[in-house]
C-alpha cells in the first residue's frame, strides 16, 4: 500500500523548524503568542507612563521607537521564558496551549527567537535613546531569565517577591529614555509594581494551586499553605499602600492621582483583608471566588494607578 507523501510528520519535517512531529506547522500568530502579548501590553503601558511622567520631553518618534524596543525586549523575555519552562508549561492547564508546549514551535526555536530579539531590542534602544536605558532593558531581560525563570521560580516560594523586579523595571526604563538617568519618581514607580506583584501572583496561585503542585513549582500556597498565603497577601498589600501614595510627595502626582490611588488602594486593602479572613473551607466551598475577584481587581488596580499618573503627565504637558 502506498504511503501518503504528506503525513503530519512529513509536513513538520519538511518545514525544517523542528517543531513536534504531530503538531501543525506554526502560523505567524504562534510567534506573536510566543512573545506573551498580554504581558507585553502591560510593559508598554507602564513604560509609557514612566516616559511621559519624566520632566524632560522626548521627540514623539524617538519615544515610539524606544517603546517598541521595550516591547520587543519584553517579548524576547517571554520567548526565553517559554524556552526554559517548556517542560512545566506542558503540564499546567493555564499554559499547555502555548506554542512551545503545544508543539507548534520548538523550544530551541523559542530560544533563538528570544536571544535574537533581546540583542536587537537592546542594541536599537541604545541607538534610539541612550546607553543607560539600553543597559536597564538588558538588565530586565537578564533578571527575568536568569534570576526569576532559571533560578528562583523552581527553588523558592519567594520567587515572585524577588522576581517581581523584572516586571517593575519598565517605568524606570521609560523614565531613563527621557532623562538619561534614574530619579526618585522612577524608583517609586518601580516600588509600586514591585510591591504589587506578590499579592497579585499569590492570588492567582491560590486558584491555580493544582497546576503549580503538579509541576512542583514552590509557589507560596504549595510551600506554606493557603492560610499563610492569604496572610502574606495582606502583609504585602499593607506594605504596598504607602508606596502607592508616595508619588504624591513628588512632582509627578497631583490631586487626581491622590483621589484615584487613594480609593483604589483602600479597595485593594479591603479585598486583601477579606481574603485574610477566609478559611480554606470557605474558599473551597465557593470555588475561590474571592481570590479570583482579588486577582481581577489587582490588574485593574495597577492599570488605574498608572493611568492616573499618565493623565497627570498629559495634564501638565497641555
Amino acid at each position, binding site marked *: 500500500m502506498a504511503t*501518503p507523501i504528506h503525513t*503530519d510528520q512529513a*509536513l513538520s519535517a519538511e518545514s525544517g523548524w523542528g517543531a513536534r512531529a504531530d503538531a501543525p506547522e506554526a502560523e*505567524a500568530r504562534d*510567534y506573536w503568542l510566543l512573545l506573551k502579548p498580554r504581558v507585553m501590553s502591560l510593559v508598554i503601558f507602564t513604560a509609557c507612563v514612566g516616559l511621559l511622567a519624566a520632566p524632560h520631553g522626548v*521627540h514623539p*518618534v*524617538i519615544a515610539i521607537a524606544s517603546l517598541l524596543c521595550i516591547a520587543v525586549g519584553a517579548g524576547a523575555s517571554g520567548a526565553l521564558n517559554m524556552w526554559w519552562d517548556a517542560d512545566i508549561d506542558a503540564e499546567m492547564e493555564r499554559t499547555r496551549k502555548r506554542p512551545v508546549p503545544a508543539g507548534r514551535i520548538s523550544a530551541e526555536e523559542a530560544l533563538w527567537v528570544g536571544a535574537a530579539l533581546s540583542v536587537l531590542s537592546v542594541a536599537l534602544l541604545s*541607538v534610539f535613546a541612550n546607553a543607560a536605558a539600553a543597559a536597564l532593558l538588558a538588565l530586565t531581560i537578564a533578571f527575568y531569565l536568569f534570576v526569576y525563570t532559571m533560578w528562583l521560580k523552581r527553588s523558592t516560594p519567594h520567587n515572585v517577591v524577588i522576581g517581581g523586579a523584572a516586571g517593575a523595571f519598565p517605568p524606570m526604563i521609560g523614565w531613563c529614555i527621557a532623562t538619561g538617568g534614574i530619579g526618585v519618581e522612577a524608583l517609586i514607580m518601580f516600588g509600586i509594581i514591585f510591591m504589587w506583584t506578590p499579592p497579585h501572583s499569590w492570588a492567582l496561585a491560590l486558584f491555580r494551586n493544582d497546576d503549580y503542585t503538579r509541576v512542583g513549582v514552590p509557589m507560596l500556597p504549595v510551600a506554606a499553605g493557603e492560610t499563610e498565603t492569604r496572610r502574606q497577601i495582606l502583609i504585602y498589600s499593607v506594605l504596598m499602600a504607602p508606596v502607592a501614595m508616595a508619588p504624591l510627595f513628588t512632582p509627578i502626582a497631583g490631586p487626581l492621582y491622590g483621589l484615584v490611588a487613594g480609593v483604589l488602594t483602600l479597595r485593594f486593602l479591603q479585598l486583601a483583608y477579606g481574603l485574610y479572613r477566609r478559611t480554606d473551607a470557605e474558599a473551597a466551598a465557593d470555588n475561590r471566588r474571592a481570590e479570583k475577584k482579588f486577582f481581577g481587581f489587582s490588574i485593574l488596580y495597577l492599570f488605574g494607578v498608572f493611568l492616573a499618573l499618565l493623565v497627570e503627565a498629559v495634564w501638565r504637558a497641555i
Partner: protein
Amino acid sequence: MAKVREEEYEHELHERRRGRNLAVGGVLLGLALTIFAVTIVKLGQNAANPF
C-alpha cells in the same frame, strides 16, 4: 482519498507559510521605517544644534 488529503495538507502548508512570510515582511518593513524615521529626527536635531 490519499491524494485529496495530500492536496489539503499542501494548501494548508502554503497558507501557513504565506502568512509567516507576510508577517516577517511586515516586521522588516516596520523596522526599516522606524530606523529611517529615527534617523531623520536625529539628523534634524543635530542640524538644528550643530555645535
